[in-house]
């Protein structure tokens, strides 16, 4: 168990990259990229987790203590999620244009010897 969460995070990055490598559709590649990004979320939160600790949000009555999970990794994950969403949007927009210009979004058909 001790490293299972980290391994799942690594697996997400790898399976996402694998998806790009074998992709036959640019949208599929972009979606796979966002799966790879999901790995970084899991890694971040796993690193900040503490068994038995609560969320880092205090009520107006509860006494603040440091017995909470790490808020810093959560803040970074939030940032990361926004970045991922916006990058995905941008890449999808580009994919739409690639399709308009080439009539295909299959990397195998797009690839040409550039030299």
């Amino acid at each position: 168990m001790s490293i299972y969460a980290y391994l799942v995070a690594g697996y997400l990055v790898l399976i996402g990259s694998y998806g790009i490598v074998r992709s036959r559709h640019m949208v599929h590649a972009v979606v796979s990229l966002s799966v790879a990004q999901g790995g970084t979320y899991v890694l971040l939160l796993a690193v900040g987790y503490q068994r038995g600790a609560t969320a880092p949000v205090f009520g107006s009555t509860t006494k603040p203590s440091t017995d909470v999970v790490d808020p810093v990794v959560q803040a970074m994950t939030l940032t990361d999620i926004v970045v991922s969403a916006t990058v995905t949007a941008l890449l999808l927009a580009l994919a739409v244009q690639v399709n308009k210009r080439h009539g295909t979004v299959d990397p195998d058909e797009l690839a040409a010897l550039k030299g």
Partner: protein
Amino acid sequence: MHGTAQLLLPVLVAAPILVACLLVAAGPFLPRRIVDSLAIATALAVTAAAALLLVATGSGRRVSWSGGWQPVRRVTVGIPFVADPVAAGLALLIAALTTCTLVYAWHYFDETESHLHALILFFLAGMEGLVLTGDLFDMIVFFELMGVAGYALTGIKVEDESAVEGALNFGIVNSLGAYLSLAGLVVLYARVGKLDLPGLGDALAHHPPDALVVASFVLIVTGFLVKAAMVPFHFWLPDAHASAPAPVCALFSGVMVELGLYGVLRLFWVVYGETIPPADLRRALLVLGVATAVLGSAMCFGQRHLKRLLAFSTIAHVGLIMVMAAMLTPDGIGAAGLYVLGHAGAISALFLITGLLLNRHGSADELDLFGRARGERVLLVLFFAAALALVGLPPFGTALGVSIAVHAIVSAGYPWILALLVLVSAVTAGAVLRSGMRVFLAVGPAPEHSQSAPDETTTGDEERDTRPLQRTPGTMLAAIVVLVLGSLAVGVLPHGGEVVAKAAERFIDGSGYSDQALSSAPPTPLHAHPAATWSPLGVGLGVLSTLLALGFAALGLWPDRLRLLLRPMQAGMKPVRALHTGHVGDYVAWLFAGVAALAALVGLPLL
């Protein structure tokens, strides 16, 4: 800490963002002239502020903790902006180059309204943020900002089919690199619980270089190496450059790519400098740099699409810069810094001239353009001046860089690298000179059929950046002149070498960086650098490169005469060229192969 110069640090990042927001909101209602002026004024103001900051860093680093979270007993929750002379110098280069490209792009892209300007300003903010931030996570955030603006600028000519495709591949490969960087950051964070560079440096000082430390380093630098277009992370660069608008290419090649190297070196000196042995890193960086320089120059010579040719030249020269910096001495870093400055002027000018040719003649193909720019005296002079700056003919800034590098390289015990420097400069500049002679002077046999062997390499078929201009506006020429003169000034200004060597000495003082940021320790005094100036050997090598470049140009112009020599070279290049497929899956596969190679280079000797 006295003075108010550190107040400028966040302004350099925030000001372009605020103006860009204004342009997004009000741009559609503003006349084009106002939009242009506003963007240029902003870039100029940032340039001036960066210059002030550079002067102020002469007496030590400038630190600004955001949010007022000053460190207490060297620990804090806040984020610092830190400027040493190298960071401030790069900030100045970034802003000056952006100003030039904005001036050049006056009258450009009517159909994108104010969006082009907003994107360039966001791009400017991202680059400034990357060099000035003293926080690892923010380096990645600004890296992504730079990336997002960069992908959009690459694909902004949506009618050009290779532009959108190049932008998409650029986006996917760079984002993946950034995610790996982030993963590396998290691995490191798990161990030390810090994110600010000075604090990380504290935490890793005298820390054994175990698997976690090495893995985090390798993963974090992957993102930067992708941006720096080191082999085998370089594939996105020619695709993106070949179709991005010329002013955008000038920014990419002139400074963005080099910022990748900055990231690697900053990270090493401040954070990992006292755990990973320099000798170990030097070997890894040398391998990367040499491979990049060789592949870039060999690929460069075979191109006929001018922008693709220049793109591979950039790859080759960034490889050279990496080789100089890999010496990991003040001389080496200083030489690399000077070379970056000199190279920025040269390559940006060449891209902007190519943009003019494309606009005028509707092509960026050196065979299509054969003799079509005859009589354009001003452009001709500028083109050849920039080409000579690229080859490193004294007294251009690139030559001064080489001159100082000679000392660094010889004293580090790698004399064979001098041959590499000369050859790579000569081959790339030879290709540039060859195309210039064809386009401006109609030298050599006229091409019989310009679309010959289209399967061999990419032709220069490209959409114009903007509608055809009747005559070259003075603003465009002015921008090019400033760039060429800038490249010259770097070499000619008195004490240039000495100043840069001192900046480099400050740069590699990682513990000084931490001390000054965390406990306001006074800066350590700097040494004199008598060797950081022109040397006879360096000048000789510059002249030799130039002569060889002319030879290579002739070889390119009259290939029939030397067929025996060229045949085996062309045959040898074939499999290498075949790797540049434009297939995003290939690029990602190479990315992982590259990470594996880097991990082996850095990690295996430490086992």
